[in-house]
């Protein structure tokens, strides 16, 4: 299987122009005979103000790719740039700064803090950075995600869908350069999933929020502007916005190989 060609726009001094860019990423877990290559040379540029989906069967390396793009993990070789900054050998403190300015997260299991109310959870990234939320922006945000009447509830008092709305608002609140969403619908029923996907699509359309979403749900991938397929640690296909049926077909085609 050939690696799909990925456009590589670069400035004159070799820094990729894309908001998130990766070059020749490999990631090896373990050593010797038991070593596993989760990524075997992945390069990509994430398009600004677009929703990019990363798809692939279990073990394809899609989660590893997202962890490395989001600076949660380091590649064995290769480079990642976020907003023009090479992550390379950045210190923990420098990466913390990148997270505050440029990265938002949406998790499969929501990862809300149980002792905080919905609103407190939403503004937490700002609290951590020592900033105050802009009142009007926060109100808009809570209204957009439909949490205005749930703002004082704690996570335990919210449904799964509501919890994920809180998590999406939390990712949006600091207007990050990019949001990474890790199987955002993986823990939700299909009706709720649709609502959450609608919300994510909406945030890209209205707020122009660049988003990278890892998923194995074809319906989720179908809301993306671009779908990257991973298999055995390589990008094997690069599709533009597609219908769920096309995504399923592409998946079947891949697993047939």
């Amino acid at each position, binding site marked *: 299987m050939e690696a799909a060609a990925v456009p590589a726009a670069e400035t004159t001094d070799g820094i990729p122009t894309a908001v998130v860019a990766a070059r020749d990423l490999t990631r090896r877990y373990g050593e010797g005979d038991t070593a596993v290559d989760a990524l075997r040379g992945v390069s990509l540029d994430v398009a600004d103000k677009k929703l990019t989906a990363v798809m692939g069967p279990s073990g394809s390396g899609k989660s590893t790719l997202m962890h490395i793009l989001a600076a949660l993990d380091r590649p064995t070789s290769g480079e990642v740039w976020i907003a023009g900054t090479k992550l390379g050998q950045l210190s923990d403190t420098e990466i913390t700064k990148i997270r505050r300015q440029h990265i938002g*997260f949406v998790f499969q299991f929501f990862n809300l803090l149980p*002792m905080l109310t919905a609103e407190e959870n939403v503004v*937490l990234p700002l609290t951590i950075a020592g900033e105050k939320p802009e009142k009007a922006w926060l109100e808009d945000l809570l209204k957009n995600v439909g949490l205005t009447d749930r703002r004082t509830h704690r996570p335990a008092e919210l449904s799964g869908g509501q919890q994920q709305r809180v998590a999406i608002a939390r990712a949006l609140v600091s207007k990050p350069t990019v949001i990474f969403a890790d199987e955002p619908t993986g823990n939700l029923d299909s009706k709720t999933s649709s609502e959450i996907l609608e919300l994510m699509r909406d945030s890209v359309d209205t707020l122009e929020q660049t988003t990278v979403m890892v998923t194995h749900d074809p319906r989720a991938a179908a809301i993306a502007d671009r779908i990257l397929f991973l298999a055995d640690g390589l990008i094997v296909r690069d599709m533009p916005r597609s219908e769920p049926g096309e995504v399923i077909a592409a998946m079947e085609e891949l697993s047939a190989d």
Partner: protein
Amino acid sequence: MLSVALKGIAQRKLRSALTALAIVVGVAMISGTYILTDTINNGFNTIVVNSYKNTDVVISGEAAFKNTNGNGVETPTFSDTLLPKVKKLDGVEAAAGSVTSDNVKLIGKNGKVVDTGGAPALGFSVDPKEQQFNPTQLTAGAWPKGPDQVAIDKATASSQGFDVGDTIAIQAVGPQRRFTISGIAELTGVGSIGAATFALFDLPTAQKVFDKPGQLDVIRIQSDPGVNKDQIISEVQPLLPPTAVVRDTNAQVKEDKKQFNIAFLQYILLAFAGIALFVGAFVIANTLSITIAQRMREFATLRTLGASRRQVLRSVVVEAFVIGLFGSVVGLFLGLALAKLLNSLFVAFGIDLPKGNTVFATRTVIVSLVVGTLVTLLASIRPARRATRVPPIAAVREGSVLPVSRWAKYGPAVSLTVLIVAIAMVMLGTLASGIATQPRLLLLGFGVLLLFFGVSMNAARVVRPLAAVLGAPAQSLGGAPGILARDNATRNPARTASTASALMIGLALVTFVAIFGQGVFKSFEDAVDQLFIADYAITATNTFTPIDVAAGKSLVGKPGVSDVTPIRAGSAHFLGSDHDLTGVQANIGTGVKIDWKQGNDSVPGQLGTTGFFTDSDYAKAHDLHIGSVVNVEFPSGTRRDLTLKGIFEAPNGGSPFGDATISTTLFDKENPRPRDEMVLVTTPDGVSDANTQTLEDNLSGFADAKVQTRDEFKTNFLKPIKSVLNLLYALLALSVIVSLVGIINTLVLTVYERTREIGMLRAVGMTRSQVRTMIRYESIVTALMGAALGIVVGTFLAVLVAQALKNDGVVFAFPFLQVVFFVIAAIIVGILAAILPARRAARLNVLQALQYE
């Protein structure tokens, strides 16, 4: 971020409260100690200040030296002819003389001496005409007047059922005699005088009863208004004999308070508070470590949201600060109750001290809160640093483990080094010679602390083998739950090890005390067996306060009595320090088998008024030989040159003799009111019920004299030491309670962590009661590990100390029975600790537990 930490505490109420509980006991102990000792000091202070009310200047007797750590010294009296001279001085408005005694024993209606448990049986004169100086006030009746009247203290009157008009027997100097109670009195403004008693007489009667004819102990002077105290002091000065001093009241109060020094008690209690806090720190560190391991996803999420390591560290430290402060505040106020409990404990063990109003000083508040919070903060540092190592990726990955610190590879080497250094320090501190006391104690103190750390750091490695041995009964008794319990205990060896270590500390100290105590008992008993060849010993009813010589004298020449040989107890100052001085008669050999190194049994008969004998250790230390002359100063200030006539070998367990022993002739010449520490008696046909009866009949005039055989003497003598040991056990129990909290914490957190697993076990058919059994056995196995480690460490320390004190008469004797008892106590601790966690585990809803995320 701060609010996140605070809200986290509110969210985890039970866990936070259990963590705080670990510090509460130690802080309560600090606060209780201060409250109790301040209250006692306040009582003493009121007594002393009150005894000089309306007094500006005080004349009192002053001994040449005090010998406070030994037999003490009776303050010399002065002639009452001084009083009229003082009254005539310029600027003196009023002056009153009085006599006092601390040996006026009241005898209850049952014929037995009212037990003061080592507190003084006070007696003093009151002059109804000089009411302004009277420290007491009547609660019933009238002031005593004439040779047959007495007023007694209210507490004794009510506890012994005496009323005004009753007669009461009193023993002071000479045989007991009866008085009519004219009144009941109390010390003005003092809450309680503890176990002390007092009897009041008019001055001539008191002088007679206390055997101080024509003498005074104190003159209180009230100056004319506007007259300077210094003027009166300089007027009085030339009139004084050498054994008396004049001071202004403030100086005298300060001087008097020196005899009520309870700083020692305070230090001891604070030391136990320190132990409880030390154990608490272990428990907190362990509890926080577990909590942090369980909250990895939370910390990781915070990191992905942009929290820095420093912010994570701060949030854990802030949490510890709040928990520590909360625990300290609770402990501070619990101290009020603990002070009462400690006091009842002391009273139960025979130590009843005076009490004023309860004192809750600012210092108590500050020290309790600062120390409690600081200890919690210190204990949180390591867990907090672990929290900073949680990688952000743990937010998305199931079952992440904490990455090891970069020093981890040195872990085993470091912990082994710590253990070896600690053992070296403790061995050096006990066995090495030529180290001064202070550095030695420091070496020992830090060595023992380090030893606890060292054992705890290495304990993780013995958890598996220990669990295999200690868990075997659990397996055979508990079946499947027993096996699971044993395996659960070894699942996280580091966690089990530090939980057990907290209990280890308490049990090591308890074991040490037990072995050390056993050694002291054994060497004392050996010494008595070797020395005591008389048939009977006569001592005071409390065995320790010396009794008036009249008791022994009254037995001489009585039918059925062969030999009577007294041992006088007093003090002297020679060769640069204060010493216990004893006095014996020529026939001492009939009661005590003396092992002469130089001289023989004829030495006691040759002492006269110029000779003394000593033991070989003292002679060797001061290079004394037969014929050496030593200048000896007596409490009155007189000095005599005494010649060494004999040297004996004292057994390791000690002897009844002081560093110098003189003849009773000389002793009685230099001590106006001599007393015997014991009188040894032989009868023609040894010990028999009839002979005991004869002696008791002969001593019926001395209610304070107790007739006892050798074995009874041993038991009576060791009784108070055993009380002290029991008191130590009770105080150490506090730190065991803290470690019990530690086991509860670990189990509660473990149950929480294994929710899904317990749900699975229930789903495949484990009953609620089997779940409880499983948790209980795990708890017992952990507690037994603590006990096993503690008993080993305690025995190790006791062996070293026994070796170091071999020459001071401490032998190593292992108290099997007590150690078995400690093991049972550990099992009980395990069972108690499991109650709450087991109940929580058994209550889990199977369905919810399985879905638990």
